[in-house]
């Protein structure tokens, strides 16, 4: 079976999001002078995390729907 492209996209952005969010939480505030005082790593990290999880969710739903229903074949005598 062919790979669903939403798996790697979701996986990569979830990782990026998680890394940036955590980094945003622990990093020094002085660093964000460049970005107009906004903790962009934290906020954009959360955006990426949400996008990544959404893609993984879509991929999972498609995977569930494509799986043949096992119970149907075993219930017939």
């Amino acid at each position: 079976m062919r790979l669903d492209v939403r798996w790697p996209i979701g996986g990569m952005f979830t990782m990026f999001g998680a890394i940036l969010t955590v980094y945003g939480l622990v990093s020094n505030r002085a660093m964000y002078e460049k970005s107009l005082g906004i903790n962009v790593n934290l906020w954009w990290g959360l955006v990426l995390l949400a996008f990544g999880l959404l893609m993984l969710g879509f991929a999972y739903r498609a995977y569930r729907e494509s799986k043949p229903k096992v119970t149907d074949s075993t219930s017939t005598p």
Partner: protein
Amino acid sequence: MQRISLGGIDYAILIIYFVFVLGIGWALRRVIRSSEDFFLSGRSIPAWIAGLAFISANLGAQEVIGMAASGAKYGIMTSHFYWVGAMPAMVFVGLFMMPFYYGSRARSVPEYLKLRFDEKTRALNAITFAVMTIFSSGISMYALAKLFELVLGWSFHGSIVLSAVIVLIYIFLGGLTSAIYNEVLQFFLIVLGFLPLVLLGLKDVGGWSGLTAKLATVATNAGFAPGAWTHSWKYMDSPSHNPMGMEWFGLVMGLGFALSFGYWCTDFLVVQRAMAAGSMTAARRTPLIAAVPKMLMPALVILPGMLAIGLHASRGGFLPIGADGQPNYNLAIPMMLGHYLPSGLLGLGLTALMASFMSGMAGNVTAFNSVWTYDIYQTHIRPGQTDGHYLRVGHAATVFGILASVLAAYSATRFNNILDMLQLVFSFVNGPLFATFLLGMFWRRTTSHGAFYGLLTGTITAALHYGLTLPRGAVPGIKGGFLGAVLHVYPSEMALNFWTALFAWTGCFVATLVISLCTKRTKTDDELRGLVHSLTPRQRDGDMPWYKRPVTLAVAILVVSTLLNVIFW
């Protein structure tokens, strides 16, 4: 110029990206069983994936860096390359040309020419296209390595080897499917990597109104009306009123018609993505789906350039000054990245830049290996072999294509003028191509001789026009006027290029028409079924709900892009 220094987290993001790109190739290696799997993804790609790959293959290095540079140089007028120079052509190829490209089962654009006309027309197109893709991919690689050397202090050789090896591995393993999947991933990365930059820049200058005020200074300093950088049409009445040096007629006909239709409707690099789609409907929707992000792309690639020049004017020294005393416009995006993004997001932004280079390069390499294998090797060198043989040739062509691109990248460092000249020659060959397709697809009387000699006439017309005219202030040579006499002086290089394309198209159109009427048809109506409009059953969209029909999407795209033109008038 101060270099941007990267932290550990930035490298981590870049490495994670490499792992995913290579991982996609690895995961797809088992899908490749036949040559059609390798070159056309087994014609099974869903429309949305093909559509995003279509736009991503076009979103290469020259596009991202070049459009930001134009945004700084010409302002919002650069959006003509999108709303005039892409939308109508993308709608046209989807609605009217895809039925013949996809319906004929041609495996490449040159192969369509063979089916519709003859072997010599195909050979002319295939050979020039194959050479051109190698050079584009090489020039792209050269630009990436130069940029990273300048901005990050990375080794030039290191960048070339790294990008070449990664692209080689993922195409070698997974063929076109791998390139397409990665293009979709790269598309999202480019959007999500550059978006924070645009948002921060806009916030910093005080929104669109703040930017307008800053760009008014830029415009008046350059001797134009204050709104010249923020209006796309208002100052198009005369070339002397706008920084592009263009007037509306030349723009609409040259860019909006000749250049744009020539690229979007005949360039195999993008058409290949639609040919890989899973059904006729999916193939027709591919360019239309691609048109949606393309329409919004100015916000992502032109706006950073406008922001950079606005900041450059108001704060001074934002862009480094080049040897010619002008700001180095090509550095607009990297400078913005370094200015606004802290470690972390900076890594994401640079990874997005890397992704744009790779998607452009992979697009060229996959188009090259198909044309080489099907249109040159299988046709002229060793026909009649097994499918497995051609699959192996495709793998070898991928390696060869990458090595040749690396060679082209290195030759760009030493013989820059030769590469410029080659690109010029190719533009003469490609300029007239759309006339051939238009007549071929919509007039069954078009003959093979008409097509071939019409193409040659168009190419010669382009070369003559270019050789006899000159942009203002240029010396005769590569910029035009190399035939000795200068019959006309254009207000800018861009105007000269647009008019050259229009002359090429007209020359080809007229010659093809006349020669076709004077020569006998070589193909019967029966042989042209599925290749010509009047001999092909019409597409039936009637059984689809109205909102799923390609034509609905097409109308929506045209309406919204017209609105955008009005808003930024």
